[in-house]
C-alpha cells in the first residue's frame, strides 16, 4: 500500500479507493468477531501513576518557577497550571471514544476526523468539515498540550476541557449528535457499558454525558509535546538548535518581530484574545470571534492566541485557514498594521501588530525556528479497533495509512 502511494502524486484518491475497499472487506468480519475490550491500567508515557490510581504529569519544566505562577516567560520557565489526575482507565476510554465514529449523529465522524494525530491533531483544512459535509466557520485547533489551556475554542468561549468536549458533539456543523442519541448509541455497543463501569467505578449509571466529557478530557490532557529541539535548547543544550533555528529564535523574541509577546514560551501562547486583522477567505463575511463571547465590540475579530507547538504540522493557518504555509502566516505580520482590513471594517488592532519590516531572510529564519517546535514523540496509539466496530470507515483507514507514511 505504502509503495503504491509513494508512486502516486494524488494520495487522497488512493485513500478513498482503499477505504472503500476496506470498508466493504473488513466491516463484516469485524462485527462477527466481537473483540474483547479492556482498558489499560498504565498511564501514558510522561505520566506517573500515584496510589490513588491517578496519572500525574511529569516534565522538565517542573524544575522551574514562573512569575505569579502564570507559566509565561523565557527559556527556563514553568508551564501554566495543567489538568491531570485522571485514571489510566479514563484516559484509555477517552482514546477509544476519540477514535470512534459512533459519537457522531450519523456515525460517520470521530473526533479524529478533525483532530487527526497524523496532522498534528488538526485536519489539514482551512475550515473543518462536519456532519453531512457542512463546512464550519473555523479551522480545527491542535489538541497537543491542551492540558495547559485555560480557554478553549478560537473565540475563547469555553473554560474547561470538559466544556470544550461537548461543544463539537452537539454542534450541527460538527458531529451533530444529541445527548439522548449519543447515550442511546453508546449503550447499544456491547463493550461500552462495561468500559464506562471500568473507568468510572462505583457510580450507578456510568454511561452519562459528564463521563463522556471526562474521558475525552482525560485523553486530551495526555497529549503532551514538550521534547522538541527548542525544549532541549531551553533546558540548556546549546547545540540543540541549528544556527538557522537559533537566528530564528532571536527574531521571534526580538522586539521588532515581537512574536514571543503573545506566543510566549514555554507554551507559545499567552492564552489571551488578540485582534490581529487577518483576512477572511474570499467571499466570507468577517468572523467577529471573541466579540460575541464577551459581548464586546472592542474584541471584534479577536481570537485566542494559538500555541505554536507542532505548528509546522497544522497548515493551513489562522482561524479560517487563510494562509497555506507558515511563511505566508509569518509574512502577514510584516505587511503593515491593518493592511488586510477591508475598507469600512473597524477593528481595534492589537498594539503589537506593528510594522516590523522583517527581511525575507528573517521570515525564513522564523519558519526554521517554528519548525524546531515540533515534537510528536508521545503520539498516542491509534486503536486497531474501536468498540463500535466502525473504525474502518474511510477516515480511519486514511488516518492509519498516513501515519504509516511518516
Amino acid at each position, binding site marked *: 500500500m505504502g509503495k503504491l502511494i509513494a508512486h502516486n502524486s494524488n494520495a487522497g484518491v488512493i485513500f478513498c479507493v482503499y477505504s472503500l475497499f476496506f470498508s466493504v472487506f473488513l466491516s463484516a468480519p469485524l462485527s462477527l468477531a466481537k473483540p474483547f475490550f479492556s482498558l489499560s491500567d498504565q498511564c501514558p508515557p510522561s505520566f506517573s501513576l500515584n496510589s490513588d490510581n491517578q496519572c500525574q504529569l511529569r516534565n522538565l519544566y517542573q524544575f522551574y518557577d514562573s512569575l505569579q505562577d502564570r507559566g*509565561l516567560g*523565557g527559556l527556563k520557565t514553568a508551564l501554566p497550571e495543567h489538568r491531570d489526575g485522571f485514571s489510566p482507565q479514563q484516559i484509555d476510554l477517552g482514546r477509544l471514544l476519540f477514535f470512534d465514529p459512533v459519537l457522531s449523529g450519523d456515525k460517520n465522524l470521530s473526533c479524529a476526523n478533525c483532530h487527526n494525530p497524523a496532522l498534528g491533531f488538526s485536519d489539514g483544512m482551512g475550515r473543518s468539515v462536519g456532519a453531512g459535509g457542512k463546512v464550519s466557520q473555523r479551522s480545527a485547533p491542535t489538541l497537543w498540550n491542551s492540558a495547559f489551556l485555560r480557554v478553549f475554542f478560537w473565540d475563547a468561549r469555553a473554560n474547561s476541557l470538559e466544556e470544550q468536549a461537548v461543544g463539537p458533539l452537539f454542534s450541527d456543523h460538527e458531529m451533530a449528535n444529541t445527548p439522548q442519541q449519543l447515550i442511546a448509541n453508546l449503550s447499544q455497543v456491547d463493550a461500552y457499558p462495561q468500559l464506562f463501569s471500568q473507568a468510572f467505578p462505583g457510580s450507578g449509571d456510568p454511561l452519562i454525558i459528564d463521563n463522556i466529557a471526562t474521558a475525552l478530557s482525560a485523553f486530551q490532557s495526555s497529549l503532551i509535546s514538550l521534547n522538541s529541539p527548542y525544549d532541549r535548547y531551553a*533546558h540548556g543544550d546549546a547545540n540543540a538548535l541549528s544556527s538557522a533555528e537559533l537566528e530564528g529564535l532571536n527574531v521571534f523574541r*526580538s522586539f521588532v518581530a515581537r512574536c514571543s509577546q503573545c506566543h510566549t514560551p514555554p507554551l507559545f501562547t499567552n492564552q489571551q484574545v488578540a485582534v490581529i486583522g487577518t483576512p477572511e477567505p474570499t467571499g466570507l463575511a468577517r468572523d467577529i470571534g471573541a466579540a460575541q463571547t464577551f459581548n464586546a465590540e472592542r*474584541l471584534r475579530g479577536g481570537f485566542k492566541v494559538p500555541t505554536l507547538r507542532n505548528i509546522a504540522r497544522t497548515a493551513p493557518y489562522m482561524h479560517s485557514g487563510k494562509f497555506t504555509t507558515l511563511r505566508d502566516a509569518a509574512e502577514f505580520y510584516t505587511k503593515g498594521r491593518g493592511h488586510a482590513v477591508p475598507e469600512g471594517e473597524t477593528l481595534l488592532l492589537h498594539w503589537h501588530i*506593528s510594522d516590523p519590516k522583517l527581511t525575507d531572510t528573517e521570515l525564513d529564519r522564523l519558519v526554521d525556528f517554528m519548525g524546531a517546535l515540533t515534537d510528536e*514523540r508521545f503520539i498516542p496509539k491509534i486503536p486497531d479497533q474501536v468498540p463500535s466496530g466502525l473504525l474502518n470507515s474511510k477516515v480511519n483507514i486514511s488516518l492509519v495509512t498516513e501515519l504509516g507514511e511518516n
Partner: protein
Amino acid sequence: MNSKSKMVLAIIIFAGGWIIGSNNNVAPVITSSVGGASYGGGFQSDISVGAVPHRTTLGTVHIVNPGDSIQTAVATAQPGDTIQVMPGTYSETVYIDKDDIHLVGVIKQGNRATMDGLGKLNDAILYSGNNIIIENFRITRYKGNGIMGQAGNNFEIRNNVIVDTGIYGIFPQLGTNGLVEHNVVSGIEDAAIYIGMSDNIHVAYNEVFDSVAGIEIENSRHAIVEHNNAHHNTGGILAFVTPGLPIKTTEDVIIRNNFVLNNNTPNFGAPGSIVSGIPAGTGILVMAADDVIIEGNIISNNKTAGIIINDHSFATTITMDVESDPNSDRTMILDNVMLNNGYDTITEVTALALTELHTGLVDIVHVGPSNGSCIINRHRYRTLGIGNYGECDFTNTDSTDTYLLAGGAKPRTIDPEARGEIAYLGVCTGCHSYTGRLIGPSVKVIQAMYAGNPQGLADYINAPIKRRDNFPEMPAQNYLDAETQFAVAKYMLQVEN
C-alpha cells in the same frame, strides 16, 4: 484633644469646605510629613543590597576586544564568569541563555564599549538567564530594544547609556527581583525604561528624556521608582495596567523623590501602541494601577497635568479584558513639590475643570472611580476630581527602603529523587518503553546492562556512544546536571513497568 481626634475634626471641616465649594476660605489641614506614621507597604523586604546574589567564588574573566564577538564570549562563558568588553564598537545582537553571567563594559577615560545596531539589527542584548548583570555599555541605533530580559530573575542593569534605540531602552519582562539604576536613556519611541509584568523591582537614579514615556511600570507589583530624572518626554513616569496581557495587575508602586520636569514632547509613539494615547505634558500617569504612592517628587512644567489618575474607560483605544480591573484604587499622594503644571491642558481636563468651576493650572487630576484614595496637604495643589480622597493615615514611606528580595529570588528546589522521576517520565519515556523497542532499546534491556551501576548509566546518558547498528544514536542528555543524570539513572534502573 489628642492628635487623632484633632485629625478627625479637621477632616470633617475640610470635607465640608470641599462640598460647599473650593472658594470658601477654610483653614487647611496642614500635615507634617517629617516623622509621623510611615507607609507599611504591601510587601515586606528585609535587605537593601542589590538584586543579584553576591558571588562567593570568582569565575573566569573573559576579555572581549574590538573586532571580537561578544556573543562568542557569552557562548564560551560558564555560569559564574564575567565578560569584560573593552572600549570600541560592536555591531551584534548578544543573547544570554545561561545563568549567572556578568556582562561588563569597560570604560576608559570616558570611552565605552559601544553596541551599534547600525539601524539594522533588532535588539542589542537579550537575556533569559537568572543572576545577570549588564553594565557600562553605550547602546545606539538598534531597531528593537536596548536591553531586554525575558523571565530572568535577579538582574542588575546599571550605568548604561542608551541613545536613539527603537522601542524600549531597557525592558525587563516577566522577571522577579531586579535593579535598574544609573542609566541614561533617551530618544526612545516607546518607554526609555519599561518594567513589564515583573515583581520586586527597583528603578533608581536614572535619567530618561526625549522619549515618549520616561519610566513605565506596567502589570507589575512591588516596585519602587525613586531618585530618577524624567524630563522632556511625552509622559514622565507611568504606572498602569495594560488590559489583554496575561498578568493582570499593577500593585504597590512607590514613586518618590523623582524630578518630573517639562514632559511636553509631542507624542511620537507608534500608532496603536499604548503610549501613543498619552497626552504630551503628562508628569505622572496612574491608570488602573492600585496602591500607588506618589511622594517627594518635584513635578513641574508639565503642560497637561502634574499627576493624572484615570481608568481604562478613559482610554478608548485599548482593548477590553474582563479579567482586568479598570479602576485606579488606593492612589496615595503625599507631599510633592508641584509648579506650573497644566498650563496648556487637553480638552478632557478643561471639561472636567468646568464642572468643578476650576480655572487655571492643574497639578492633580483624577478621572473615574477610585476606592480608598488619599492625600495629605491637598490645599497646596490645584486639583480636579479628588473630592472623595480621604486624608492618608501616614505621611511618608521612610520605613520602606526597597522591595528587592534578600539573597535574590530562589530557584525552585526539587529533591534529587523527584528530579529523577521527572526527567525519566518527561524525557526518557519518549524513546524507551519498559518492554519492547520504541526508538531506543527497552528499559528492561538497559536495566540488565547496568544492574547495580547507576553511575555507569549516568555516564552514558551524559555522553552516549553508538552501540547498536540498527538503532539511531542517542542524543547526549548533558544539559541535565550531573546530579539529575545520576538521579534519572537510578530511577530508570528500578522502574517496574
